[in-house]
């Protein structure tokens, strides 16, 4: 890569990244939607189900508020990823994207800038929620925090990539909302975020095992209970969780890149 080519890659990526940040924080309702909504869900379900929910084999006092914590964290990552990738559709519809597409910038830089932007937003929102761990009675050490941060980053990247992949070919935000309700939310519901696989029917268990998000949720849970052998039986090892999450992130990026290389119908309107 020659010097000029590198410059046509770095600066454009950075500027697209920067724009995601500015836009997100200028639209307060998005910040609230992506962070406050999951927290409200968490509190309502956590206190509502409270002690009537029991993880198989869990110690006393391990209520739903605690179980649902990791799930809520992933929900925050997912929601922020969705909100930031919806902007791809808006950018296309409003015309902003055209100007980016005719600039001397490769698609790699465009996809990377956009996905890293969404990743950073999801990641930061996740960090804010992570500060709530003491209230759930979980204590984290440096090692477990590092692990959770790493997993959160990978998962944010993977989910933003997934959002990008879907949004790139969409012509309307309504279409994206439909996909969100029919695909993305179930993806999260069936990841062990809301209920453990152990009590679910065989078919759901099978789906959950195939769902890459399951391994991310599981990895975060392992971070939260770093020194404990986890009560939820049948959970994959840390290595497997980390490996699947890395693969998930890479796959989403590669697929997004492939999608962005092709001219879509939306470009022709």
């Amino acid at each position, binding site marked *: 890569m020659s010097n000029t080519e590198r410059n046509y890659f770095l*600066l454009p990526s950075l500027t697209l990244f920067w*724009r995601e940040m*500015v836009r997100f924080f200028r639209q307060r309702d998005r910040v609230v939607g992506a962070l406050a909504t999951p927290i409200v869900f968490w509190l309502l379900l956590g206190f509502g189900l409270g002690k009537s929910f029991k993880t198989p084999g869990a110690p006393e006092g391990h209520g739903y508020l605690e179980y649902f914590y990791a799930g809520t964290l992933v929900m925050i990552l997912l929601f922020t990823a969705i909100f930031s990738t919806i902007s791809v559709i808006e950018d296309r519809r409003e*015309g*902003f994207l*055209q100007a980016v597409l*005719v*600039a*001397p910038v490769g698609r790699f830089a465009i996809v990377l800038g956009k996905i890293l932007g969404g990743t950073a937003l999801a990641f930061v929102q996740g960090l804010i929620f992570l500060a709530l761990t003491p209230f759930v009675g979980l204590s984290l050490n440096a090692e477990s925090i590092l692990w959770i941060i790493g997993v959160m980053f990978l998962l944010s990247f993977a989910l933003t990539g997934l959002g990008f992949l879907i949004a790139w070919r969409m012509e309307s935000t309504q279409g994206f909302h439909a996909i969100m309700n029919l695909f993305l939310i179930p993806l999260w519901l069936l990841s062990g975020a809301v209920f453990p696989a152990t009590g679910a029917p065989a078919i759901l268990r099978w789906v959950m095992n195939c769902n890459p998000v399951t391994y991310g949720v599981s990895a975060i849970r392992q971070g939260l209970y770093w020194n404990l052998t986890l009560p939820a039986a049948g959970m994959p090892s840390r290595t497997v969780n980390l490996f699947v999450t890395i693969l998930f992130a890479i796959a989403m990026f590669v697929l997004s890149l492939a999608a962005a290389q092709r001219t879509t119908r939306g470009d*022709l309107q």
Partner: protein
Amino acid sequence: MNEPLLDVEAVTHRYGTRTALNSVSFQVARGEIFALLGPNGGGKTTLFRILSTLVAPSEGRVHMFGYDVVLQQGEIRRRIGVVFQAPSLDRKLTVSENLRHQGHLYNLHGHDLQKRMDELLERFGMADRRNDLVETLSGGQRRRVELAKGLLHKPQVLLLDEPSTGLDPRVRRELSDYLERLRDEDGMTILLTTHLMEEADRCGRLAILDRGKLVALSTPQELKDQIGGDVISVDAKQPQVLAEQISKRFGMEARVLDGNVRIERNNGHKFITELVEAFPGQIEAISIHKPTLEDVFIRMTGHRFDGEET
């Protein structure tokens, strides 16, 4: 014309089975203000997309600055400024932020970028609005920022898609003054699409596109001169019958369009008298005008230019 800046050779483009462009060829020289005129759906937007490197043509070749528009995209992209019909500004960003973002995409940064931004904002009279969000600007102001955005990296060619759409006549006039200044002061080549006759009339040269075909290519004046003399339009009870009678009697072409008989003729004012005397009682109203681009279009295509906005 020496070495053309833009060379379009037999370009055909299809969307599925629909042919949007049918073997279009023309050349544009450095320093021209060139218009692609045509009704909506005529193919000009497709051609615009090809020229701006967004779409590769199905057939044919396009060279700009000697580079192939498909194979050497990067070289071309660095040298062209593109102003789309749909606003490309981010409304949630300020004027400056939009320009800075654009500059970064073209690898401009730091002091150079700042200087260039100041220069353009000054030139377009937007310096005092630089820190305002784009969503607070008027339509005309946004157009100026769009233009500044397209010019930021000092392109040699400026491509504009329907630049006047949605602008009131005063702002349109302002825009065409800007474009002329860009050509005169910066030696820029400007290529725009339009469906407005008056806008095309102010351009140096134009190509008329209809249903994907190039139907005329020349300066506005030459095109109008081809018609020769005047255009007479006759409102008659039985236009078809009258048209045939006129053709027979005067040995000239008279065609019916939208219920009117149209005749192209030198010294039209004298001919009107003859006409009215020759067909008493058949003529309801008669009018005469100097040829316009619309008349050129009708002559070339046999139908009215229906893309005109009212």
